[in-house]
């Protein structure tokens, strides 16, 4: 019985995950002419290194990597810190105005950020086209999810420690920094992963908000590679770039797989 199940699972995983993955890998290793109509066969001539070199130089994957890191790390760090601070208040206060503020700040879980009015706003603020405007948008939308998850967690943390520290005369900032924040580890990890994946992979908002090649993120770079030849798509470069765009997350995932899946599950079920 179990063997049948494993065989069935292997077949499904092979078809659903393996086939697309294989296609990406073999065609990323082919020279242009061979990859013109992508196929499942192994390359006759291997051009993997050449393709990566082209993607890195002409596709500016290095710049993209740097920008993606900067924007994702900046957004996620801000969201987690500001979110924890707010969530601590939300989790500890039962007053009506605070509860209303809580609801106002988690609407973003359901209602997405409007993209074009954001462009308008950024133009008014003098932030048009900048990385900061994109970080602001990500923070504005995804603080909702972070606050929601962290507040739930704060409520499950006993108050005693905080009260003891308060009696000893510790200020609020110190209590937060030395006692509360460290306790939030598990939920910050879970929320951090989810946010990191959302923001790292986002194309839509970056497409509208960022301007100039020097600011482009990895997905914007992929779009540029796909579009650089009008006559036929250079699938070899496209797939090489797909690997470049995906590899950082996949590597991290493979290394921390167990904790990541457990973290995401813990975060999800609270919803």
């Amino acid at each position, binding site marked *: 019985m179990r063997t049948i199940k494993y065989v069935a699972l292997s077949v499904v995983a092979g078809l659903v995950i393996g086939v697309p993955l294989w296609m990406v890998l073999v065609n990323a290793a082919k020279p242009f002419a061979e990859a013109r109509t992508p196929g499942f066969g192994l390359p006759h001539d291997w051009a993997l290194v050449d393709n990566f070199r082209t993607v890195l130089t002409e596709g500016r994957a290095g710049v993209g990597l740097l920008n993606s890191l900067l924007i994702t790390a900046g957004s996620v760090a801000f969201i987690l810190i500001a979110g924890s601070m707010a969530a601590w208040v939300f989790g500890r206060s039962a007053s009506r*105005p605070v509860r*209303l*503020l809580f609801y*106002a700040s988690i609407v973003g879980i359901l209602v997405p950020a409007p993209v074009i009015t954001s*462009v*308008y*706003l950024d*133009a*008014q603020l003098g932030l*048009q*086209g900048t990385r900061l405007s994109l970080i602001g948008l990500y923070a504005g939308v995804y603080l909702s999810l972070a606050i929601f998850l962290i507040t739930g967690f704060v409520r499950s943390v006993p108050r005693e420690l905080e009260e003891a520290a308060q009696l000893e005369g510790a200020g609020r900032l110190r209590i937060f920094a030395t006692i509360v924040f460290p306790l939030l580890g598990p939920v910050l990890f879970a929320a951090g992963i989810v946010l990191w994946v959302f923001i790292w992979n986002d194309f839509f908002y970056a*497409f*509208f*908000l*960022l*301007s*100039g*090649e020097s600011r482009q993120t990895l997905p914007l770079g992929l*779009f*540029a590679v*796909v*579009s*650089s*030849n*009008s*006559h*036929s798509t250079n699938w070899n470069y496209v797939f090489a770039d797909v690997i470049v765009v995906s590899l950082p997350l996949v590597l991290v995932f493979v290394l921390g797989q167990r904790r990541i899946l457990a973290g995401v599950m813990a975060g999800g079920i609270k919803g």
Partner: protein
Amino acid sequence: MKRTLLSLLLATTLLASCGNPMAKTESQSFPQAATDLNGVTLTVWQSNTLQAGYKSLFADFEKATGAKIRPEIFPDPYESNLLTKWATGTRPDLMIFQSTASFMRRLDPAKNLYDLTGQDFVAKQRFGLAKTAAVLDGKNYGLSLEPPSVFGLWYNKQLVPKPPTNLTELVSTCKTIKRSGATPLYDAGGDQWTTQILPFMLWTDAMKAGLQDKLNDNQAQWTDPAVVDALKAYKSLVTEGCFNSNLKTGTYAEQQEKFVAGQVAMIPQGTWISSDFVKSVGVATMNQNMGWQALSTTSPTAAYSTTFSVQMPRTGNAKQEQAAAAFLKFASGAGYQHFVDVQKQAPALTGFTTPSEVPAATQAAYAALESDGTSYPQLFAADFGPFPTYMSKLINGSSTPEQVAADLQAAWAKSAKTAGLTGF
């Protein structure tokens, strides 16, 4: 909470009552071309369909002046991709795009681009380009390095001994070829954009007879019988089986391959395709196998439209602008002959020579431009929407020719009204 909401609303209203944040006003006269360009990098926004000549022109310019050129390529549909970026406020030093009036209008050139009208290279433009390319409200905003794109029928001389010169002949030629087993016509419904060309060709007679002017003045509508008939003709060629069987998903690349391989007898295409053919089969084979024929509904009249031109945005950076001006000078002077030679095209400026490798078919297309009455330019004052999408609906049977015409008219009216054209 109430107060927070209130102040938010207040802030919102304040923001909304400001002017258009994407409008910028500047007025600077055309900059002097710089002479020392070492250490200057020019950003050039360009369409992804530019041919080899531009690359070599950039390299020549870099070598001659010490400047660096950094091309930024905009994918199809480049208009929407470019304008999405343009709206973020970014400006390149130069841009090379197909400069139709409706595209130019969206750039708001009076504010954002340099007026090139008085420059000496504009006076040297051939094929009437000074009056048709990158022109808006009588001002010229672009330098055209290429002749206009002429739309016509490329045919295989073996399969089509006598090319059709009007719609009736096209239909009968199609029938003859079908009997021989070859595919009469190929269009690339998968890439969509190629499907505009045959309608362009077919409605040219009517446009030349006055319809285009009437449309531009809102004296006529796109639902005009002439437009509907052109679309109906396309549709009936589809039902007759004149097109490739994979019309819905065919690609531009395959269109070329099948035509070169002799499996397809005719393709409605622009002259830009010539250099691809030169690359794939060479001029000698082309001259032997390929012909070009102007065709509209009732007469052999070729439609043409202006193609790429180099435009110079106002960036506010004097040093960059002087370098950009130097590029225009170089491109229209010392660097131009080599550009033409690499492009294997007729020169768009007087005083240069046509390279020997321009194929006979392409020369026939340019001849149609230069002799009187055999061609007519597409110069539409506004935009008629995503025509390739409408054509795709026509091909897929989800729109009738009448609906496509109505879609064109709706998009046209919207564009003209938004742009504030007189008469709308």
